[in-house]
């Protein structure tokens, strides 16, 4: 297991929740805040193991709920369902493709708020949601879709900068060295 990658994912999740709560620019401009955790979950489920997916769902969900009026723990399950669903099919997904990242980000970001609202309605703590939610949902889905490839580039850059590179075997062999000159 790549511990560095897992730690980086959790660290970015923490920063993402912080930015969602403290930066208001997108909310002012578009009337809705973009959720960065589904995009991060798409990256984690295509690049990391089940441990990282579970840790991200629990840690990210708890951080998100702690700054929100959501009941504590309501965001864990939607995030995990998205991550686990992608993880089960990841052999069939071309993770390096920009379009695949975009579509997965769109689906994940659209699904996460719907699942969260479904859970809220099951627990009978449904907020007052009207037509404005359709607009918010569109902003969240499209914003998440755009941010997913950004997430992949960010982590590729971080891994490139921080992780050890794999040693490449050269074709040089001592026993086949041609020695020139006279002895």
């Amino acid at each position, binding site marked *: 297991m790549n511990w560095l990658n897992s730690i980086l994912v959790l660290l970015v999740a923490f920063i993402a929740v912080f930015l969602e709560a*403290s930066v208001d620019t997108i909310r002012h401009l578009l009337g809705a805040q973009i959720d960065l955790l589904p995009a991060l979950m798409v990256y984690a489920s295509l690049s990391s193991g089940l441990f990282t997916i579970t840790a991200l769902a629990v840690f990210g969900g708890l951080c998100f709920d*702690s*700054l929100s*009026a959501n009941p504590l723990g309501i965001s864990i399950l939607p995030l*995990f369902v998205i991550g686990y669903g992608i993880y089960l099919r990841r052999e069939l997904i071309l993770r390096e493709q920009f379009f695949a990242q975009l579509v997965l980000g769109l689906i994940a970001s659209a699904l996460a708020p719907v699942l969260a609202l479904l859970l809220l309605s099951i627990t009978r703590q449904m907020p007052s949601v009207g037509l404005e939610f359709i607009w918010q949902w569109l902003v969240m889905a499209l914003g998440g879709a755009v941010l997913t490839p950004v997430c992949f580039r960010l982590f590729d850059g971080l891994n490139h900068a921080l992780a050890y590179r794999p040693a490449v075997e050269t074709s040089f062999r001592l026993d086949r060295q041609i020695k020139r000159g006279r002895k």
Partner: protein
Amino acid sequence: MLKRPHYIALGLVGLLTLVFLNLPHHAANQIKLAIGSLFIPGFGVSKSTKQLLGNAGDALTTRTELLRQNEQYRQVNQELQIRAMQADALQRENDQLRQLLGLQKQFPWRLRVASVISRDPANWWHSLQIDAGSRDGVRPDMPVMTSAGLVGRIAEVGLTSSRVVLIGSPECKVAAWVEKTGDNGVITPTSSPGDKLDNTLVILSYLSSNSSLKPGERVKTSGEGNIFPKGILIGQTVEDSYRADLGYNEARVKLAADLGALEELWVVMR
């Protein structure tokens, strides 16, 4: 067929979700506040950065502009001092009259300023966090306002921060009255799909069926319910309509405070 780690992950997530969702309200709040406190240094840095940027902007203001503003504030200050003297005199007169009538004495509001440190990251809740908590004397259900009007009430209190539910959300119903006509009602979230897109509108419900409100009438807190003191401005009526299905009138009210651009708030201490 799933492998063992899959069962462990599924079981763990299911168990944690069940445990957290079934925690007693107080315990869940304590955990929320503990996790939320991890973000407080970050919010402090964010606030300082905004202040630094604001100061950098101030440095670009010309001396002439500053002198002009200073003069303007001096005039406003003098006007407010005169109004404060008038208000003091009226307060004394009011106290004497209440004493004569045997009514309970009214105490002036004690206000504490607080800054908004974060907004709810979930789009479906209308709440925000402020940088004042139990350490500063803040308690649940204290009203929160700006100089423009009512903003909401304190819902949860931590040591150094509190969560404010904004007016217009289902968690923040306010007993209100129309200043001119004296009609009483309750401020509730708007139910009209069109109005839902505009977060500056709320509904003044449960007005008597024979009330007739004109646009532009000031709506204030009525003081009933003992949460919001009487007289805080809520907004102005836009139009009224009769709900024949429910048997009462209701009016759309445009909020006086701009809930989308809140930075500094006042907590009404009691």
